[in-house]
Every structure is written in C-alpha cells, then in structure tokens.
C-alpha cells in the first residue's frame, strides 16, 4: 500500500505554547488510521496542522505534494476533507445547504446532485431533515451531517475529529458502521481521532498513540489492542 499522508518532523504551536513535538506519521492509502491519546495529547492539533489551521514547522506531504505551506482553503482543493471537533455545522442554513457547501470546490452539477442523493442513502435521516435548519438537528444527526458534508468533497483523505463526542452509544455504533462501509466502498482514506480507544481500534487497521504532544507508540490496531500498557491505560482493563 502506498503512503497518502506523510508527516515529517512536525512541530505545532498556539502562540508561544508548543503542542506537537517532532511528530512523524504515515497514513496508508485506503486504510483507516486512528490517533489515540488522552485529553490535551495533541490529537486535534495534529488534524488542524494537516489543514494548516495552526502554525507549524516540518513537512506534510499529501500523495507526494507538499501541502504545509498552503492555505486551509487550498488544502481542501487537494482533496482533504476535515470534520472539525464540534462538527462545524452551519447552524442557520438548511441541511441541504450544508451538504452543498461541502461540494463548493467542485464544478459538475450532475455529479454533485448524484452525490447528494448518495449521502441521503447513507444517511436517510438527513433526507427527512433536508429543508430543516441544521442547528435544530440532534447531536447525532449533526455528526452525520458533518461527515456527509465532508464526503461531498469526494475527498482522498477524510480527517475525523472525535465523531463519537457527546453521542449515545447506539448512535455512535451506527455512525462507525457507516464510516466502515464508506471506507470499503469509496476507498476513502480516513484519519480518525478518538478518545474512545476501544471503538477506534475496532474500526481502524493502524494506530498511533500520542502523549503530551509526542508519539509514543505505533503499530497495527491489533498490536495496540493486545498491548498490556494500552489495555491498562486506554481500554480500561
């Protein structure tokens, strides 16, 4: 498998506070990679660094093209869709308008309309709420909307920031099933940030563990699942 996202010696900082220290990550094309870690470990910041929403040093390559000097809106044009923490819903717009914004950088109207229908088959609940103001959707629906909005880009790489946050376990399972199906059928590479390590390791095929802004472990999801230290600290054994 080829490497889609290659992060080398990445440092990131908010003002004077450095959050990431010399990070090296490789994301394989077509797979699901998860980034684990406690609160404040730098998971969200890693995603924000890929989208250039924080100031960084180091190199970030997407399919061999250097993207770390581009603006956020241009990285989107290279096929990176980012579902931010808090979901980033356009609350005053309708569900359909939210979805159409996801395909803002694409031009073919026919393809966009076809993808819109596809999203409605993935997430039938969004179809029911098509003309409803997105801010009135439930948390689970808004998370589905955020993922669907990101998919409307037809991304090569999907960055997902804590899709399970604040949702009921049943809804979380539904969303994770859909993500797995999307990864299989559309061959979208997914980089998933999760606090719920058990859930994330079930879905992912590769995992990295962050502690205080530094990478401390990496391997296949199975390896990490069986690691005694991980089981103790993150899986609650």
């Amino acid at each position, binding site marked *: 498998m080829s490497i889609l996202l290659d992060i080398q010696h990445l440092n990131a900082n908010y003002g004077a506070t450095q959050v990431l220290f010399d990070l090296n990550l490789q994301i394989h094309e077509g797979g699901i990679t998860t980034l684990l870690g406690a609160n404040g470990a730098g998971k969200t910041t890693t995603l924000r660094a890929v989208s250039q929403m924080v100031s960084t040093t180091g190199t970030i390559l997407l399919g061999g093209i250097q993207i770390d000097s581009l603006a956020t809106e241009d990285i989107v044009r290279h096929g990176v869709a980012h579902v931010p923490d808090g979901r980033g819903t356009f609350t005053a717009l309708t569900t359909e308008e939210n979805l159409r914004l996801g395909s*803002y950088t694409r031009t073919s109207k026919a393809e966009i309309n076809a993808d819109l229908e596809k999203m409605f088959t993935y997430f039938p609940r969004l179809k029911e709420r098509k003309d409803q103001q997105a801010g009135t959707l439930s948390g689970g629906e808004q998370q589905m909307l955020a993922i669907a909005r990101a998919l409307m880009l037809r991304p090569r790489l999907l960055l997902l920031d804590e899709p399970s946050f604040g949702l009921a376990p049943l809804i979380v399972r539904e969303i994770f099933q859909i993500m797995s199906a999307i990864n299989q059928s559309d061959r979208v590479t997914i980089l998933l940030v999760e606090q719920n390590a058990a859930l994330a390791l079930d879905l992912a095929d590769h995992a990295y563990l962050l502690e205080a802004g530094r990478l401390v472990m990496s391997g296949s999801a199975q390896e990490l699942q069986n690691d005694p230290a991980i089981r103790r600290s993150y899986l609650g054994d």
Partner: protein
Amino acid sequence: METFIHQIMAGIATGGIYAALALALVMIYQSTHHINFAQGEIAMFATYLAWLLIQAGVPYWLAFFCTIAIAFLLGVMIQRLVIRPVEKAPVLNVVVVFIGLMITINSLAGWFFGFTIKSFPSPFPSHPPFGSSYVSSHELGSISVTLALLITLFLFFRYTSLGLAMRAAAQNPESSRLVGIRVGWMLALGWGLAAGIGAVAGMMVAPVVFLDPNMMSGVLLYAFAAALLGGIDSPGGAVIGGMVVGVLENLLGAYVIGTELKLTVAMLLIITVLVIRPSGFFGKVIVSRV
C-alpha cells in the same frame, strides 16, 4: 384623502431607498459585526460618478449600471486596502477607521465636485403615471427599481452557490475555510455588493434631495433606524423596517411635526428601539453569559 394616499406612496418610495441602504448595513454587519458608518458616503460618491457620466452624455440607464459596477469595485477596494488591515483590531479601532473613511470620502467629494448643490436627473417622466394624482412617476419608478434590486439580491443569495458561500462565510468562517471557501474574498465581495446597493439608493434619492456631499447624512440616519427597527442581523427585517420608517417619516412630517423636525423621527425611533426592543422586530435575541 388624496394627499394622505400620496404621502403614503411617497413614504414607500423613500422607504424603499432606506430599505436598500439598511440592507447594505445589515449585510456588512452580518459578516463582520461592524456598522459601516461610511455606507452613506460611498453611496453619495457613487452618485457623483453617475452625475459625471450623465454630464458627459452617457445615456441614463447605461450610466446607472456603470455606476453600480464602479461602486462595486470601489467597495471591494476599500475592504481590501482599508478594512482588511484592521480586521482583527478591537472594535473601537474599527469604528474610528469607519468614521475616518466617512470624513475622507465626504471631503474628497467636496474637493472634486464642489459643495454647491446640483440637480440630479430622474430617468422617469415628470408627468404623473396614468394621470394619477396619488403618486409621481419618480416615486413609482423608484419603488420599482428598489423592488427589482431586492428581488435580485434575494435570488442571488438564495439560489446561487456564490450566494450560499457568502452566507456561509458570514456565519461560520472556520467551517467555510474547511469546505474551500475563500472567506477573505467573500467579505470583499460583500463590501462590493453593499456599495453597489448604496449606489442604487443614492441615484434614486438624488433627484429628491439634490446632489451635494452631505446628501446622504439624513438618509443614512433613517437607514440606521430602519436596520435597527427590523433587527440589525435580519435582511428581511431591514427591508420592512425601511418601508415603515419611510411611511412614518412622511406621515408625521405632513400631519404632526412638520418637515423641519422630520429627522428627529429617526433619532426617536433609534432610541425607542434600543430601549424597548434592542434586537429589533425580526432580529435574533442573543443571550450571553458574563
């Protein structure tokens, strides 16, 4: 009765102009949370440009559309060159920049065109339409023009992907960047549109108030009142507010307080709205924890 109906029609005609300018204020407020005090002066300057074109022999409607285009470019330029550098500055700095802009444009107009009052042509016939005595041709024409403008804007924002992107950028800049919208340019575009709308308002009101560098100061005050009455974050509210202020101003001026005190109506409205219902009639009530 006849004068009463005429007063109402005249009120709707000027109300439409207030509505347009109020809409321009609301558009900029929605995307930046700033009140553009220079909105009226930009409109005035654009009207002078229209006057120049018409003086040079350009047919009225060609001059009309050229002026809108020039005003649009001016608006974009002002945002890029003057407003963008203070985008992240504290609100008072921005207010000072807006006031500076207002005075600068006003003085520039005086310097280029002089302070003597000029007449500005109306594109509509001077005899009343259909021999009616209820409404003048300019009033009816002005109502039609502002109505056409409002409908065009509504269709643009509701049904085009650029319009959608502008609304998105105004609401949630960070998410907008994440779907690839160039938020900075959307703001500039918003300024351009607002300046274009202002230009239309200026050209429609100039035949009534005559052309001079201070022609928009009163109009802008009414537009403020209209925007506040409707709710400073509600485009639809701004339009309705404009109509209400226009009619109210005319009726009170004609029957209650006389024309000399008409401008106080705007002040009174502003104060009343701010005291009784600060969010306006159609605005969102925002509660914040302190």
